[in-house]
C-alpha cells in the first residue's frame, strides 16, 4: 500500500506492507538511516522518533498507522545550515555519546522530555530515559548534557 507522511516538514510517500514497521519504512524506504534499530523487543530506544508530537519507538508502530502523520526524526533536528540544536550541542559539549548508535534515540527522547518538563531534576531525567539503553557512556554525561540543554547547572564531578 502507499503510505504518505510528513517527515521533518517534507511530504514523503512510499510503499509499505501491512507488516512494515515505521523504523523500517524510515530507514529502508525513505533512506533516513539516522533512526537506528538496536533490539527487537522495543526495549532499547535507539529508534525513538516523534509522531504527531509524541515520542514513540518506531519499531513498535506500523508504517501504515502513520499514514497522514507528522513525523520528526534525528535528521530534522539541526538547523538547515547544519547548526546543532541545543540538545545536540549539549551532547557534544558534555561528551554524552561515544559510539553514537543510541544517540539519535537519546536526543529524541531528551527533546520530548524537555518539551514536557523544561527543567527536569537529575532523578526525573534518569527516570525518563528508562526506555533508552546506552552501553557506552554509563549515562553520567547524558544526564549532564540534558541538564545543560535545559539551562540548569550541571552537576560537578570530582575531576573538574
Amino acid at each position, binding site marked *: 500500500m502507499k503510505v504518505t507522511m510528513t517527515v521533518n516538514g517534507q511530504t514523503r510517500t512510499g510503499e509499505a506492507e501491512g507488516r512494515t514497521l515505521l523504523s523500517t519504512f524510515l530507514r529502508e524506504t525513505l533512506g533516513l*538511516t539516522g533512526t537506528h534499530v538496536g*533490539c527487537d523487543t522495543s526495549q532499547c530506544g535507539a529508534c525513538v522518533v516523534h509522531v504527531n508530537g509524541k515520542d514513540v519507538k518506531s519499531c513498535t508502530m506500523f508504517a501504515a498507522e502513520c499514514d497522514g502523520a507528522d513525523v520528526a526524526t534525528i*535528521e530534522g533536528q539541526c538547523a538547515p545550515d547544519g547548526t546543532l540544536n541545543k540538545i545536540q550541542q549539549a551532547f557534544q559539549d558534555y*561528551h554524552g555519546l*561515544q*559510539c553514537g548508535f543510541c544517540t539519535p534515540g537519546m536526543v529524541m527522547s531528551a527533546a520530548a522530555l524537555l518539551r514536557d518538563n523544561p527543567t527536569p531534576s537529575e532523578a526525573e531525567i534518569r527516570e525518563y530515559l528508562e526506555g533508552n539503553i546506552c552501553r557506552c557512556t554509563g549515562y553520567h554525561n547524558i544526564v549532564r548534557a540534558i541538564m545543560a540543554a535545559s539551562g540548569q547547572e550541571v552537576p560537578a564531578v*570530582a575531576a573538574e
Partner: protein
Amino acid sequence: MPKDGGIGASSKRREDVRFLTGAGNYTDDINVNGQTYAWFVRSDVAHGTINSIDTSAAEAMDGVLKVFTAADFESAGGIPCGWQVTDRHGEPMQEPKHPILAEGKVRHVGDPIACVVAETLEQARDAAEAVEIDIDELEPVLDMKAALEDGAPKVHDELTSNLCYDWGFVEENKEAVDEAIKSAAHVVTLELTNNRLVANPMEPRVAVADYSRARDEYTLYTTSQNPHVIRLLMGAFVLSIPEHKLRVVAPDVGGGFGSKIYHYAEEAFVTHASKVVNRPVKWTSTRSEAFISDAHGRDHKTKIELALDENHMFTALRTDTYANMGAYLSTFAPSIPTWLHGTLMAGNYKTPVIYVNVKAVFTNTTPVDAYRGAGRPEATYQLERVIDKAARELGVDPAELRRKNFIKPEEFPYDTPVAVTYDTGNYHATLDKALEMTDYAGFEKRAEESKARGKLRGYGLAHFIEACGIAPSNLVGQLGARAGLYESATVRVNATGGITVMTGSHSHGQGHETSFAQVVADMIGIDEGMIEIEHGDTANTPMGMGTYGSRSIAVGGSAMVRATEKIINKAKKIAAHLMEASESDIELKDGQFSVAGTDKSVAWGDVTLAAYVPHNYPLEEIEPGLEETAFYDPSNFTYPSGAYVCEVEVDPETGKVEVLGFTAADDFGNVINPMIVEGQVHGGVAQGIGQAMLENCVYDENGQLLSASYMDYTMPRADDMPMFDVDHSCQTPCTHNPLGVKGCGEAGAIGSPPAVVNAVIDALHRGGYTNVEHIDMPVTPARVWAAMNS
C-alpha cells in the same frame, strides 16, 4: 589550566557531529545495488544429531535464490582459532572444527544450520520457516565440572573429552605454593563465580558482502573491531581468497566491547554466498539472535586461596579456575583465562609465589571470548574479594592490608612471579586519592545515618592493575598467539599542509578521530582541524591489528608518533634546503621551521608545498612527497592501575542494593584527552556495576538461554547508575612507549565488580549478618535477601 588543543586538551569530538545528526554510516545503513538478504536457521536445541535437512519447500518459495547448508561449504575451512594454548603436560589444547554451518551435529542453541538467501528480508525470513530439519536431541552438558566427569556427553565426538586444556602457571611454582600455603599463619579461601555476560553493543552485528565477478573481487562491510584480522583469517584460512582480492570495511561501528573482535561464521557465509548467488548478500542480526550468536564473556568458576604470615604479608596465592569455552573456540577464547588472566594474578601486590591452574571446558553453550577487560576482570575480582575476606577474618582495615602489601613506588620496574614486569606505578597514590575523594574517615558517621533510616551502608574498596596494549609480538608468539600484535600508521601530508593519517586501529566509540588528531597536531604544532584520521577500511589503511585490550593509543598511537617523527625528519631536511641552512640547526615549533639562533623561518605549509611542487627542491638528495608509514611493536604491556570505591545501601527488608556513589582514582600515565578518558571510565564502570548487580546469562537445564532478550537480560539503565566521581591526576607515565600512555578503556569494568560486592558484604556485616562471606554476582535483591536469611 586545561589546554585549548593538542595533547592534554579536552578537545570536543569531531565524530559527534555526524552521530548527532543521523549522518553516521553504520553497516546496516549500507545497501548495495541488487542486494539480497540472508536469514539463518539456527538450532533451537542445545545438542543434537542432524538427521536430515529438507530445503526443497523453502527453495520453491517466492524470491528465494538459494538455501545453503553445510554441504555448500565443503571446500571451506572452519572458523579458525587465533591462539594455541599448551597444557600442563606440554600437549596442545584440543581444537575442534568450527564449521560455518553445522555439520552433522548442533552444539548450542543458536548454532547456525542453514541460511536462506532471498530477494527481500521478509521472503528470506518466511522461507526459513519452511526449512525442515530433523534433529535427534542429545543430552546437553552445561555445567563445567559435570562436563569433565567420566561418561559425560561429549560436545565434540572426535575429541577425547570436553577438556580443552588443563593449564598450569607457573608450573615450576606449584610445589612452592603448596608448601607456603601449608605452613602459612593464615590461609583465606573463597569460592566464587564470575558470571557469564553478553557484551551487548547497541548496534547488532551486520555483514554485507559484494562479490564482483567482473573483477573477481570481494568487498565485505562488517561490524568489526579489526577489519584486517577478519580479512586475514577469512581470506587465508576459511575461504582461500587472496588478500588483494578481498576488501574488508568496518565503517562506523556502534560499540564492540570485545564482541566484535572475532571472525564470525556469518561474515564468511555472506562473502561466500555472494559469489555463489552472484549478488550482494546482507545479513543483519536481530538482538535476540545476538544473544545466542555473539561471543559471550567471563564465565569462570574459581577457588582462590591466599596465604599470609603473622604480619599479614601475603606469602602465596593459589587459584583453581574452570573456564567455559562454550561449544566452539572463538578466535581468542583460549588466551583469555590463561595469558590474560594468569599473568595478572599478582595484582598490585608483592606475593612471592603464585600458582594458577585453569581447566578450559567445552559445553553446549554459546562460545565465550574476550569481553571488556578479558581475563583481567576475572583475576581482579578473585584477588580483591579474597583480600577483603582476609581483612575481615584478620580484623584489620582493608585499605591498610592492601597498602601494606602493595609494590612500593620505588620498587618499579617490578617482576611479578607470574611472568610480567610492571614498568611504573604508584598504588599508594591512587589509594590515598580514592580514600580522600570518598571521605573514608567520615564513613562511620554516614553508616550511622543510614542505620537510623533502617538501611545498611557498606563501603567497598578494590584496587586493580591491568595489562593493556598486549605485546610484544615475539613474546605473545611464544605464548601461543598466531598473530603479531603491532600496530601501524601512515601519515600522508598533502601539498597544502593538511594531513591524512591512516591507522590500523579501529574506532567504535573511543573517539580516535579526535584524540589521534590531537597527537599529530601537537607534534607538528598545527591546528587539529588540519588532520583527518582514516580507519576501518583495508583498502586504504596499512595492515593493522585493530582495537581491543586498550591498545589503540598505546600501540596505535605510538605507530602514529613514529610515522610523524619520520615526517618531521624529512620536512626538516626540506626546510634546511629552503633556508640554505644545516639540517641539524632546524627547529620545529608551532608549525614553523626556523634556523636556530637566527630569525629565518619557513612555515609548515611552505615545506609541504615544496615537497609536492618541487621547483626549488634538492631532488638529487630527497625524494619528492611527504608520506611515511611506521609499524610499532611494543616492548611490553602497559600497566594502568587504580583504586575504586563503591558505597551502597542495602535494604534489609528486601535485599535491594542501591549504589549511592562510585569513585574511581586511576593512573593511566599521560592522558591525551581527559574528557574522552573520563567517558571511557564512566562506560566501563557502568558495565562493571551491571555485571555486579544486574547482568547474567541464565541457561535452563536443557541449554535454553533464558536471558536472551532485553526483556530478560537486565541491561543497566540510567536509573540504575549514580553520577561517578573519577580522577586521573595520579600519573606515572609508561616508560616504554613514546607517549607515556597506558590505556583506559577497560579499567572501569575491571575495578568495579569487586568494589560493588565488597561494599555489599561490608554492609551486611555491619548489619550483623556476619555469616555472609560471599554472594555471587549479580547481587540481586533475591540473592542478597536469601543470603541474609540463610
